[in-house]
């Protein structure tokens, strides 16, 4: 079995009489795939599903812990695995396997980056309506494993709504297929749902088939600077209750930037479609704004850049030494109360806090840190618990997305009672991965 919490796991070359040629243990390569301070002993770089199978068979037989690796863009998210011996990078499996524009479907190997896929689709006038952070490096396998999304979720949903099929290698090295390549399919259980969002704890995704959409002819993003939170709430309800069909609807607060482009409380609405549809909606949006004393203007490039940096919870321009990104998920109609709870919890702990809400779906990401550099992290670690207390009367859930400078063990990452259906989830994990090979300690909502 692997060493507990060693900086580097067991020496694979010593364990195995011969290292397969696609498994490497160069210092430079293994350092690249570290998660939460854990450095793998080796990195598998399979070129095909057969090598993924082999890597997992090796790991399973040696009792090694495996972390599937895509673009590394979520490596800082969630609690780190409690063991990490072998990182399994899909970077060499980066081919667009089959794009059928007429069928509006595309099949890709897991290592294809979102940016690469979008460029390939755009050539045929199509796109994948997903905008999670770091399109340039995030891979489709990783996006599926994390069920990662961005502002377009408001209109198009998440990976779980767009993935039609996948090929997965299980912890025991079996190749299984879920779903298919057609847009409607109810044959058997939808095992796609099992793997999407499972954070690599149930299988290694090697191929994904997705639904794609036509490229929008025209797109416009507008922003309204708002006064009190009550005005934001009113305007948000007015937009949601209107006939407008925004592609995105976000709310941001005190984007943590100094200098030009810094924003107060803002609401952002984006529209897509033919120019006629977009123009009609922009006019209607402006009329709604006038009724409620808010003025919409086009989102400038600078604001857009600031917001996209923030929405991805990427590091703000001046990263504080200690930082916590928490996610508050609840009802869209309770957003104002979520914000109030965030503000009071942050103020109780004397933390600086900035929030970004995906307003239509009731999800807020808040980045909190010490206002002064060099302060101790204890107060930061108390934030999730305090926030849950403040939100106890709402149907809101608080999870920690990222933590920097806090001891992982000192944090309550997930809701203390676990996610709904926790026992079922744990039983699924032990049935599919009895040796706890894949990302041990990373079960979403459970740890």
């Amino acid at each position: 079995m692997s060493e507990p919490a060693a900086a580097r796991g067991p020496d694979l070359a010593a364990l195995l009489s011969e290292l397969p040629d696609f498994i490497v243990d160069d210092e430079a390569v293994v350092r690249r795939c570290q998660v939460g301070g854990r450095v793998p002993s080796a990195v598998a770089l399979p070129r095909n599903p057969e090598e993924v199978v082999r890597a997992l068979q090796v790991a399973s037989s040696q009792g090694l812990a495996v972390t599937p690796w895509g673009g590394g863009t979520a490596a800082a998210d969630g609690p780190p695995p409690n063991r990490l011996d072998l990182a399994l990078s899909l970077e060499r499996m980066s081919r667009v396997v089959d794009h059928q524009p007429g069928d509006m479907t595309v099949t890709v190997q897991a290592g294809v980056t979102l940016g690469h896929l979008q460029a390939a689709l755009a050539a045929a006038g199509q796109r994948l309506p997903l905008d999670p952070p770091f399109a340039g490096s995030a891979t489709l396998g990783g996006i599926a494993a994390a069920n990662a999304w961005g502002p377009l979720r408001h209109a198009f949903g998440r990976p779980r709504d767009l993935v039609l099929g996948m090929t997965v290698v299980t912890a025991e090295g079996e190749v299984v297929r879920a779903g298919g390549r057609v847009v409607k399919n109810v044959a058997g259980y939808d095992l796609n749902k099992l793997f999407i969002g499972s954070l690599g704890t149930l299988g290694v995704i090697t191929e994904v088939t997705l639904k794609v959409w036509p490229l929008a002819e025209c797109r416009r993003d507008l922003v309204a600077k708002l006064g009190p939170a009550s005005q934001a709430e009113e305007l948000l309800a007015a937009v949601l209750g209107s006939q407008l069909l925004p592609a995105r609807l976000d709310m941001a607060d005190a984007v943590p930037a100094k200098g030009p482009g810094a924003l107060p409380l803002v609401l952002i609405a984006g529209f897509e479609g033919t120019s006629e549809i977009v123009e009609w909606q922009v006019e209607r949006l402006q009329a709604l704004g006038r009724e409620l004393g808010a003025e919409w203007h086009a989102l400038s490039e600078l604001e857009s850049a600031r917001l996209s940096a923030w929405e991805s919870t990427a590091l703000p321009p001046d990263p504080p030494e200690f930082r916590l990104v928490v996610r508050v998920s609840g009802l869209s109609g309770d957003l104002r109360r979520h914000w109030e709870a965030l503000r009071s919890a942050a103020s109780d702990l004397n933390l600086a806090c900035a929030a970004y809400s995906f307003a239509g779906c009731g999800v807020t990401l808040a980045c909190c840190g010490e206002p002064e550099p060099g302060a101790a992290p204890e107060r930061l670690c108390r934030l999730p618990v305090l926030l849950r207390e403040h939100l106890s009367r709402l149907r809101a859930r608080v999870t920690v997305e990222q933590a920097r400078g806090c001891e992982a063990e000192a944090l309550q990452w997930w809701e203390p009672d676990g996610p709904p259906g926790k026992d079922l989830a744990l039983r699924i994990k032990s049935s599919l991965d009895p040796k706890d090979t894949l990302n041990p300690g990373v079960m979403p909502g459970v740890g």
Partner: protein
Amino acid sequence: MLSSTEATRRAPTVSPQVIEELRGVVGPEGILAGQETRVYECDAFTVARSQPEVVVLPRSTEQVQAILRIAHREGISVVPRGAGTGLSGGALALEGGIQVVLTRMNRILEVDLRNRTLLAEAGAVNMDLTRRVCDEGYHYAPDPSSQHVCTLGGNVAENSGGPHTLKYGVTVNHILGLELVLPTGEAVWLGGRGEDVEGLDLVGLTVGSEGTFGIVTQVCVRLVPTPQAYRTLLAIFPTVDQATSTVSDIIGAGIIPGALEMMDNLIIRAVEAAFHFGFPVDAGAVLICELDGLEAGLDALADRVRGLCKRNGASEIRSASEASERAALWKARKRGIGATGRLAPSCMTQDGVIPRTRLPEVLRKIAAIADEYGLRIANVFHAGDGNLHPVVLFDERDPDQLRRALAAGSAILEECVRQGGSITGEHGIGMEKMEHMSLVFSPQDLELMARVKAVFNPDGRLNPGKLFPTNKSCIELPPVRRGAVPL
């Protein structure tokens, strides 16, 4: 092989004492036993029958839990059932046992328009959800053709679709959370009331599990704003080929209609005889293309679709300009399969899916299969999704016709799989297509599904004998009597 005669011959699994105990749970009005259960011997897959020993109609989650605890203690099989509109035999009580019918749990418990959610019991009728909120400008999007009677719980079990799922998605895209009573009687909430709950997507996994995980008792659904405007076009084509090519062209042009449906000549004639909508009975095919969304730009879009129809040889393009015309058109379409009752004593509806660009080719193949087996096959389907509904017409009193009908159905599904498609788009596997699962899934895929099932339903007592292949031939044995079909 099972028929209702054998089902009753089988040793009873529910003792008189257990029936009394169940009566105590649901009250004398909520239980049927003996010959009274006959009405529950089949669902809309009418060629197969199996009678439950006892039928209970609970009124609350607590009653469902109590029933399942009794069944668990006694080791009795349990099969949940909604309105019985399922087309794959999923609600058949194949081992007798207890049938739990959810139709009395039909309350809408909460409507929250600000958050666009509705909470209802599993027995609520699909259409009642929309009816409750339509005056406020919202609707529940999945609209299976049986939506006037089918239940939300049944929709969840089958992951039901409908014409408008082309643009709006199927059931799983609209379910936020659900309450599931496990075979042990334990009730769990999966998902929640909001859009985002951490953890595995157990809601997504449960939707479409065909009643083999547990009994769904409450469901929180997402509501969708009703489109501001519609343009509903009816394009008439001399041939099926022209209609299917038009479908490919519309999708290829980047146009996503709210619905894109096709009916062939056999269906047109049946529907016309039943509803007198004014369909041309000599047309080869009609295409219903419904564009919806904002009023702005909708006419221009409709013109583009008209142009594509004309280019493919449409002989006429009508539009349903009044809301009443639109309603009549959809009524005719949604009752299309029912109308085939006028064409033959029996029909069997297949549900294969293909990549939409393969429509012309596969429709030609279906015509060839009809010829080969000496049967008529009518087509009414969700063309935009590539979800076919070939309706095989036959007379089930003739064993040879039944055999040929089953064989023709299989041949169609094999063709769908050959074209990169699937054996079911919205009707489910049930008992009808169990043996076809091996066409699309490897033993490893099926083994994984079996492991997942075992987590929820370890002894397989819940909806036994469904979904997984038994590796027995499904069409070998002759039927014992009218309606009975070998498994």
